[in-house]
């Protein structure tokens, strides 16, 4: 009773997608009656994240749930956490192999590059040959991997099809519009989360390309769900962040209390959400979905 688990992510604190993680870990903490904490490097600097993991290990929790945004940087701190007796579960980014290599209990999540690659293949099947990837945090490796994966899935060069959009919605909107009017033969748009998807929706609305251009996005949010419903967005890639945070807490608690542990890694995604399989998603988008 009262075990302490800490979740460490690589996201800067402005990234709204991680909100779902915070909510679900809190929910899991409440349900399992354990103490949970969420930690992240304020600017998204992964080297700072390594320090946070070291710090968490020093504070002696029962378990650490962490993303593995850069194996080189994080493997050291995670390994010494494991060695000093803290159980670790890798979530979100990373892979099953890497988790095993570090001595983590398991991996829950969806590798970013692979998800991008799958989306690219899907788009290729839909006849897409060129695209615009709206990247709102270009300095973050995981987001670049999504664009890169998508390009590789399509079988085209990424080149300058990735747009450094910044985080200001008006600028995102206007840059997307500028890009599209300068490159009118763009087939598809890929956004990497609600942050870039919401203004992009408005941009398409304004230049009249809404519903006309092939639009896919990572992750969910209120506006994205509306977009999918109205048919502007073709699909959203859902990696079900809820599970990525909720399951590790539940698994760790039960492991510590009763010694039970699932034998396999868990893939929480990728799942393609389309207008056909919305449902509950609408209700909880941005909160638990």
């Amino acid at each position, binding site marked *: 009773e009262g075990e302490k688990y800490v979740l460490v992510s690589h996201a800067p*604190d*402005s*990234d*709204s997608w*991680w*909100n779902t993680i*915070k*909510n679900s870990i809190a929910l899991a903490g409440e349900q399992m009656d354990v103490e949970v904490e969420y930690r992240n490097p304020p600017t998204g600097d992964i080297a700072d994240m390594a320090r946070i993991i070291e710090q968490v290990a020093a504070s002696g929790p029962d378990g650490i749930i962490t993303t593995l945004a850069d194996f080189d940087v994080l493997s050291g701190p995670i390994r010494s956490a494991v060695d000093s007796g803290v159980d670790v579960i890798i979530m979100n980014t990373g892979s099953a192999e890497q988790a095993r290599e570090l001595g983590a209990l398991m991996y829950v999540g969806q590798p970013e590059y692979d998800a991008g690659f799958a989306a690219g293949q899907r788009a290729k099947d839909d006849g897409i040959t060129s695209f615009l990837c709206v990247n709102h945090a*270009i300095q973050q490796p995981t987001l670049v991997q999504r664009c890169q994966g998508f390009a590789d899935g399509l079988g085209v060069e990424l080149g*300058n099809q*990735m*747009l*450094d959009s*910044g*985080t*200001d*919605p*008006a*600028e995102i909107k*206007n*840059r997307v*519009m*500028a*890009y599209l*009017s*300068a*490159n*009118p033969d763009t087939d598809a748009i890929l956004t990497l989360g*609600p*942050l870039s998807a*919401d*203004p992009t929706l*408005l941009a*398409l*609305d304004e*230049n*009249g*390309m*809404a*519903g*006309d251009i092939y639009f896919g996005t990572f992750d969910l*949010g*209120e*506006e994205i769900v509306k977009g999918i419903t109205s048919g502007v967005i073709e699909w959203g890639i859902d990696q079900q962040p809820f599970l990525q945070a909720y399951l590790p807490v539940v698994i760790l608690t039960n492991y510590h209390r009763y010694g039970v542990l699932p034998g396999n890694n868990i893939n929480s995604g990728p799942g393609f959400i389309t207008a056909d399989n919305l449902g509950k998603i609408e209700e909880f988008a*941005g*909160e638990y979905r």
Partner: protein
Amino acid sequence: MTNAAQPAAPDERIKEISAFRKALIRPELGGIVGTIAVFTFFGLFAFDSGMFNSQGIMNWSVVSAQFMIIAVGACLLMIAGEFDLSVGSMIGFAGMMIAIFSITYGWPVWLAIIVTFVLCCSIGALNGWIVIRTGLPSFIVTLAFLFILRGFTIFLPQVLERKTIIGGVSDAAEGDWLAPIFGGKILKGLFTWLGDAGVIATFDRGTNAGQPVVDGIPMLIVWALGLIVFGHVLLTKTRFGNWLFAAGGDAEAARYSGVPVNRVKILMFMFTAFCATVFAVCQVMEFGSAGADRGLLKEFEAIIAVVIGGALLTGGYGSVIGAALGALIFGVVQQGLFFAGVESSLFRVFLGVILLGAVILNTYIRRIITGER
């Protein structure tokens, strides 16, 4: 002796300066030259990219107008000898407060907007008060508020709504009397007419087919122009404007001459906060949502625009028109790079180079024309 007056004699020690050159000696000059240079450049290299059709013009106008709104505040504050690094966080904070008041607490939108204005201006005043009372540099004080306000912007929605983006403000603002003043468009009729008349293009596909591609002037632009006119008149045509120059030029000397320096500076911190709030309200009304990451790095963009516009970072010199031109240059360059199809990851490199180029050009032109060197 009651009269020591001597007739004014022409000074043989001054070389002649032509009237034209004299007319050019003004802080706006660099901005004017820069504007011409930028438009020439993109006119040559991105003319057929759509940058100068009606939609393209609207595109960079909106971005520039955003910069202008915060640049006016930053400019007056900088002339008064201080600066404010919390502008960006203030934008995020103000937007979030409107969303929280109107969505979480369900207040009518007009009330949410007014309360937010009062709140943010108070925070601006607090900023100024701390700077005045402690004598600390405004860099440090407002840096602290950069963190504090951003922290609250992340923390509050998280606690209250369990999200970091609060949406639905558009729906709540439906029928509100104050919201359209920030989020609406004007001259819609004119643009529809222009579209029908074929002067501006109309959409030929999608949901808006047949409507003009530009359907009105966003209030954002109106606010930008309004603030520029207000700031310009305040600075150059009123007693208060003289106090601004004096407070920034030499606060001690101004104080000794009876200028209420403290009041002037605090008011300018409040005005900067006001401008940031205008920015935030326009944004929230246009996009219908507030996010914890809004306004990141905006403080730098404001300072850049002001400096490109010819103001001195150390205070006491500058012009609102210059700052507005600086904002225009900055906006046009930023959007123009996309129209011109510059490799996206090189974007920041270009931005830095152009910033540096603009400021150096500015300084040199001023020196050449004033004959300083």
